[in-house]
């Protein structure tokens, strides 16, 4: 539609398309939800003659009921994703307003739309929320939880989660009850337990909202893990308080025994949840040990075991969130050591995808439910709730930090405290818990309204202003640094050093216990849970291999070694030179030969081609699969650096022979087949060079053994023996080509390996 595309530029056009689709979708849904008879054909078939007369065969028929449920679900998800897409097309908007706010607004609009049409907008069903929408987000968070900062701050996190939430709940509940006692408010019917129940629902920091907002502000690791960890761990407290007050408000009275049981319940819920999660985590790790032959289903094990952990703990009224976190944390190191690289990538992307969809849906449904839900508005109550939320949070954080800082080495500064307090957002969990309240609570609607108002306030006001505030206060941001092998080495180095110094000092400190756990892990646990010989591999080596693999893959994709800076430093710059080096020109020639070999292979890849090597035999492409070539290319590139080093060792050129004529080079090379090097050297055979034709070269590539560490399943450096063999083959090939006094010297100048 050319006119359409001219009239509206770029993103606006896309937006209009999206809105159009939305309208059509909703319209279709609404229309078609009227019961449709299967014989409602577009071709003329008379509805009046039903029973005995033969109807004309309905060529086209609409049967919406048949597909209704999946259709609606798919439509909603599609809507959510299109919205998400739309936001990122408007750069200015997505920079100012966090995505969660925009999604709620969209939800409001859609809800309003549905109401205008006359339909009943769907409310966020609590069961749907807790069983389908929440688990992916939590699993994503738990599986990728940064363990080191988490364990270093676990004490602080627990204090905030448990004591902070308790303080919030009681402070708010108590003060609201006091408020309700005031005659003028008109809420004298609300008793203490109902208020405390309300307090416990509203007091919990919500992980979904925190994730959504903090994701975009890139704050420093410490504050991020504090708020985020708190939002995850306070689930146990929330579950216990909610169930407790729910039970009590039905009964009406509380005894000391009940309170005591409540405390016991808390420990059971949290520890039980963690235990269930850990069990499933170990099961998953153990299963992954045997999946080497069925790699395709590996990611499914991760998802299903975690989901089972969640459902099992929900079944026993334990904390599902803690189970999910525990499962993810426990299984991750073992599963990652066992599964293939592709499975790991799949797991990562599926988790991110599902959690993204869930989050989007949750916020949209929040908006829709706001329009839908029954409301009872009471100005005083609602406003007081919002204010009390803020006040209790700030007081709680300040008070607790004061106590915590006495025990911390790295103290929390005022800025950190502010962000922790301000980042305590409420979200959909509070809403769902409120929705779960049975209708016997007479204040249910009022509570729901207040909860929604609090959520809106925290997400909109706090969510939108936190970014400029972070900038204003110049809070430390997350370090955007690539993983550096030096840092990794020193991290491990420091661990051992500090353990040692603690030993010298003579007390069982943090590092001592960590060391003990590591040793236990290595000797007993890893043996059972990790396939093959991998369990002996220390972290540093795993890290190094991952980096190598990543570099190799990037090399294949972009055709060159990745480097942050334009750096021409290579291995030979660091290698100590034991032999007087070759003259510069000769080195350049050798390097050129090696690189041109690589470029030959590069031709077959979709990378930039060098003008010298545009001619290439089409036959070869049939013979060799691209995969093998890719592997060869990777290995050859790797060999380049090694070969350059070895070259400087092998070619002991006396200083006076300076002239680099090609013929002379070759002769010199032949005569110098006595190789001198400190390392163990592959022997070189100079066979009678038959004019090597292209199939030969190809077949030589086929001989190249696959380097184990570059394969998806890393098997340890048994590759050393094959490394040498590999180098030997390369060396032979190079030697053969160089020593071949080919018929056309000039041609070889340009293209030394054309005939190889």
């Amino acid at each position, binding site marked *: 539609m050319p006119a359409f595309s001219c009239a509206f530029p770029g993103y606006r056009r896309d937006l209009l398309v999206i809105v159009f689709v939305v309208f059509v979708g909703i319209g279709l849904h609404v229309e078609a939800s009227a019961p449709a008879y299967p014989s409602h054909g577009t071709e003329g078939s008379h509805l009046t003659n039903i029973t005995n007369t033969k109807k004309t065969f309905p060529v086209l028929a609409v049967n919406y009921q048949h597909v209704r449920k999946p259709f609606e679900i798919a439509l909603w998800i599609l809507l959510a994703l299109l919205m998400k897409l739309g936001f990122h097309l408007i750069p200015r908007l997505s920079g100012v307003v966090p995505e969660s706010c925009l999604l709620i607004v969209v939800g409001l609009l859609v809800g309003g739309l549905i109401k205008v049409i006359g339909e009943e907008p769907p409310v966020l069903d609590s069961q749907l929320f807790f069983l389908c929408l929440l688990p992916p987000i939590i699993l994503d968070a738990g599986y990728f939880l940064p363990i080191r900062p988490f364990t270093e701050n676990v004490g602080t996190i627990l204090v905030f989660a448990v004591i902070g939430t308790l303080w919030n709940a009681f402070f708010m509940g108590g003060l609201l009850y006091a408020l309700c006692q005031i005659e003028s408010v008109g809420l004298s019917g609300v008793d203490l337990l109902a208020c405390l129940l309300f307090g416990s629902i509203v007091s919990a920091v919500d992980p979904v909202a925190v994730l959504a907002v903090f994701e975009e502000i890139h704050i420093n690791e410490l504050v991020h893990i504090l708020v985020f960890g708190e939002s995850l761990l306070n689930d146990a407290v929330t579950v216990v308080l909610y169930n407790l007050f729910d039970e009590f408000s039905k009964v009406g009275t509380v005894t000391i025994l009940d309170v005591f049981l409540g405390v016991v319940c808390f420990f059971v819920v949290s520890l039980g949840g963690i235990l269930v999660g850990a069990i499933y985590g170990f099961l998953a790790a153990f299963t992954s040990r045997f999946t080497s032959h069925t790699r395709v289903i590996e990611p499914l094990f991760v998802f299903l075991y975690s989901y089972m952990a969640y459902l099992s703990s929900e079944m026993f009224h334990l904390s599902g969130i803690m189970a999910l976190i525990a499962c993810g944390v426990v299984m991750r190191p073992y599963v990652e050591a066992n599964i293939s690289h592709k499975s790991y990538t799949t797991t990562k992307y599926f988790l991110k995808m599902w959690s993204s969809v869930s989050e989007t849906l949750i916020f949209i449904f929040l908006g829709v439910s706001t329009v839908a839900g029954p409301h009872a508005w009471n100005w005083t109550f609602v406003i007081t709730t919002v204010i009390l939320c803020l006040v209790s949070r700030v007081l709680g954080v300040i008070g607790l930090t004061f106590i915590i800082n006495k025990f911390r080495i*790295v103290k929390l500064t005022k800025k950190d405290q502010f962000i922790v307090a301000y980042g305590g957002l409420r979200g959909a969990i509070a809403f769902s818990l409120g929705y779960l309240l049975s209708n016997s609570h007479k204040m249910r609607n009022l509570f729901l309204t207040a909860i929604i108002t609090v959520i809106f306030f925290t997400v909109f006001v706090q969510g939108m202003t936190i970014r400029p505030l972070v900038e204003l206060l110049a809070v430390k941001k997350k370090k955007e640094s690539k993983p550096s092998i030096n840092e990794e080495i020193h991290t491990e180095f420091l661990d051992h050093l500090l353990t040692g110094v603690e030993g010298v000092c*003579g*007390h069982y400190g943090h590092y001592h216990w960590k060391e003990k756990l590591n040793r236990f892990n290595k000797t007993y646990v890893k043996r059972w849970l990790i396939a093959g010989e991998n369990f*002996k591999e220390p972290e540093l080596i795993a890290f190094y291999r991952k980096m190598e693999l990543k570099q190799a893959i990037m090399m294949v994709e972009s055709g060159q070694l990745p480097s942050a800076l334009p750096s021409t*430093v290579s291995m030979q710059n*660091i290698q100590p030179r034991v032999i007087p080096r070759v003259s510069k020109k000769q080195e350049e020639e050798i390097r050129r030969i090696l690189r041109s070999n690589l470029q030959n292979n590069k031709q077959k890849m979709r990378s930039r081609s060098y003008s010298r090597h545009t001619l290439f035999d089409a036959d070869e492409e049939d013979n060799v699969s691209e995969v093998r070539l890719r592997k060869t290319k990777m290995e050859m590139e790797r060999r380049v650096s090694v070969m350059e080093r070895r070259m400087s060792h092998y070619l002991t050129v006396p200083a006076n022979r300076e002239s680099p004529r090609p013929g002379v080079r070759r002769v010199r090379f032949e005569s110098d087949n006595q190789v001198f090097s400190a390392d163990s050297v592959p022997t070189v055979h100079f066979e009678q060079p038959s004019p090597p034709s292209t199939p030969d070269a190809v077949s030589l590539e086929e001989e190249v053994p696959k380097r184990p560490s570059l394969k998806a399943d890393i098997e*340890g450096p048994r590759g050393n023996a094959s490394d040498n063999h590999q180098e030997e083959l390369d060396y032979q090939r190079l030697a053969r080509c160089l020593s071949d006094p080919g018929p056309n010297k000039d041609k070889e100048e340009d293209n030394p390996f054309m005939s190889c």
Partner: protein
Amino acid sequence: MGASQSARTEHEFQDLADRTGFSLEQIGNLNKRFRQLSKNEETLSRQDLASISALDNNPLRAQIINAFFDKRNLRQNEAGTVQVIGFEEFLMVMSHFRPAAMHITEEEREKLRREKLRFLFNMHDTDSDGTITLEEYRRAVEELLSKAGTIGQETAKAIADAAMLEVASTTRGKMEPDEFYEGITFENFLQILKTFDIETRMHVRFLNMDTATMRCGK
């Protein structure tokens, strides 16, 4: 004698506290530990440290012990090692592991970083020539992975090489093919570990309370 001795030690401790930055209680505890390790002698030798059982499984055992006797860590600007150290030297080495105070200025923080990184640098630079050469770095990584069996030994070299390459790339950028990168100088070391928050990581908890009951045995 008891009173005057304790008065003398009090005065000494105060002096030490001022110079090293520990609190009096911490110095008291460390003194107890020192006495315990040195078997009530005035000085500590390598043998005494080597007999600590907690260090047995530590891959960096030898380097840690050497660090205590390294003159460079004892604020003496010369190379070499001493044979025995007194309590003051013990404290000086330990002071490298004190955490940063809560409110310190930027330059104090920078100074602290330099001090701690200098300690690490000295541990790597075994021949005290001011640079960490490839051989020294290789040896350091090999020691680190020494408890990992044969797998560790083979890849240790590759890891050290990759690390060195990284340092050279970051600090020197472009190098001609025939240039040679001598080794990591202290300035380079600072540069590559710029984002490494060593001032918060490199600390040991020197408890104020009596840790005698918590000692992890000899």
